[in-house]
């Protein structure tokens, strides 16, 4: 059971495949290989409904990639902590029981991983989305950072295997032993809804910047 699960949410139909495409792109780009084998697992979920709960069970960190409609310009990428999500978050569902409902259920049953992050990409009508590679370029460092922070919190040392980091340097976990969190919610770092890129209204975005 991988401690970090990245779940692409969507459907192969009806244009609701953005979460899948992003997850596939991260897999192709080698994100799991950035960490020791078995630590990070990427899965595509086809309108999982309540099955989202077993898909996350046992994980320390779950990162969901999903389409979102919140009124922002298409291509806007938002990072939400589960703690900030409610039914009005605007996550799109092409089936009756969506991600927001599944997470609300998991929260009520106290069956969620200690940390759940959602990267929502604002969708519009094709072809208004920016190129997938641009979105991946933003997601890559953000997700690596999330995973590293989470593993540090769990005091899991890891060996970066490639990708711009210095060879096989063992990265020691940050923080003193007393700061180790076991299960339960992470501290207040959940209270964040972060817009990772700003997309000018009415124009196709060509450049992004991380905030």
């Amino acid at each position: 059971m991988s401690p970090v699960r990245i779940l692409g949410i969507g459907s192969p139909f009806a244009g609701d495949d953005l979460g899948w495409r992003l997850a596939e792109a991260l897999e192709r780009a080698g994100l799991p290989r950035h960490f020791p084998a078995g630590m990070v697992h990427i899965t595509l979920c086809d309108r999982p409904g309540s099955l989202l709960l077993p898909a996350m069970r046992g994980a320390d960190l779950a990162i969901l990639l999903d389409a979102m409609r919140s009124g922002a310009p298409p291509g806007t990428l938002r990072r939400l902590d589960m703690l900030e999500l409610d039914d009005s978050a605007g996550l799109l569902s092409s089936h009756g029981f969506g991600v927001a409902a599944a997470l609300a259920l998991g929260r009520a049953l106290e069956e969620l991983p200690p940390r759940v992050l959602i990267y929502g990409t604002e969708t519009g009508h094709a072809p208004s989305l920016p190129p997938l590679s641009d979105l991946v370029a933003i997601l890559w460092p953000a997700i690596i950072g999330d995973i590293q922070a989470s593993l540090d919190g769990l005091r899991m040392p890891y060996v970066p295997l490639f990708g711009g980091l210095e060879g096989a340097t063992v990265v020691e976990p940050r923080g003193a032993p007393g700061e180790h969190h076991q299960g339960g919610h992470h501290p207040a770092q959940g209270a964040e809804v972060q817009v990772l890129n700003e997309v000018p209204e009415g124009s196709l975005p060509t450049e992004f910047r991380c905030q």
Partner: protein
Amino acid sequence: MTQSREISLSVPVLARVEGEGALDLEVHGGHIETLRLRIFEPPRLFEKFLEGREYQEVPDMVARICGICPVAYQMSAVQAIEGIFGLAPDPWVRAMRRVFYCGEWIQSHSLHIHLLAAPDFLGYGSVAEMARAHPDTVRRGLALQALGNEIIRLFGGRSVHPVGARVGGFHRAPSRAEVAALQEQVGAALPGAEALVAWTASLNLPNDAQDFVSVALRHPDEYPMNEGRIVSSGGLDIPISDYEAHFVEHQEPHSTALYASLEGRPYLVGPLARLNLNLDRLHTPVREALGRTGIAFPSRNMFHSIVARAAEIHHALLEVTRLLEDYSAPEAPFAPATPRSGTGHGCTEAPRGLLWHRYDLDAAGQVRHARIVPPTSQNQARIEADLRRSLETLGLERDDEALRQQAEMVIRNYDPCISCATHFLTVRVGRR
């Protein structure tokens, strides 16, 4: 002077209907003038997609029609195609298809009972709200749903849009060890499933007897699932190939789902219709559990559908236990097929009711024409009739919120599978 107002409500609880639906209600002088349930169903497009495809592709393609009941689509399709090829499934294939199908009933019914319907009867706006007060109830539902998915995965390779079924049988036979592990889980779930029948009957279900015609398959000695004749509470008893002679579909401008009628009248398919027509085919412990509820079946109360679903979960678990007893993997999990041209029919009992398919194949086994009649479109006219009656009984003078709640509860009770698209139900009420 006419006073008319339009109200649009987008309702979170509508996440508990699969897909998109809208209800238009026009009230004039205290009577319902117009009541339209507008829904959108994808199978019409699939029928065209199937044209020109090889017969081997059909089971995987039709599995994509629905994320909740893909097995039903596969089973109706292979039955029709095997009928054309003159290929009769051997006893192992027949039994394991039934196990596969039981998995789908278990997961679909568990989902509906616990996550979609129960909040209505326990007085909660959503299952998350209900889960705080009734966590064990919700966990039971999720566990049963997971078991159903596990059964589908064992034969289908995965639980959503499974890929294990093929014309002639399955691509792979589970090992004895896999089956033994499943049997253990099924055995452990049985007491809970029996208790579920009593639990559903103990809910505060409205008492609302209605006049409707039940339609379901009937098999000489089994509770219907993969095969049988089409029968009705009105005395109909026909082979599945005669479906088109008795059941007519027509289009209404407000809905992309076709309306079906039997001899010009709405009819009911699904768990309650099945149970009403096949009580004598249930396993004895299920009949006894139903008897202890004090509810007299056949029932004319549509709200007893939830009890019927629970009974079918119980029955399906007993059926899986029976069919997997003394399991051994066959030499080959499928019989080879030799294509030939012809027209074939398939009709099986999807969780939501009768799912009828017809295929015309050419000599190479390519699809020339396909017709698929899903259960929800068959129930559409019945849902509208029920809505009309239920809202009038409730009282049309009630405020819009009360009308909306009642309408949603009535619609959800049919467990309509209105796949795809968005998940908002907009209710427009016009009063004059």
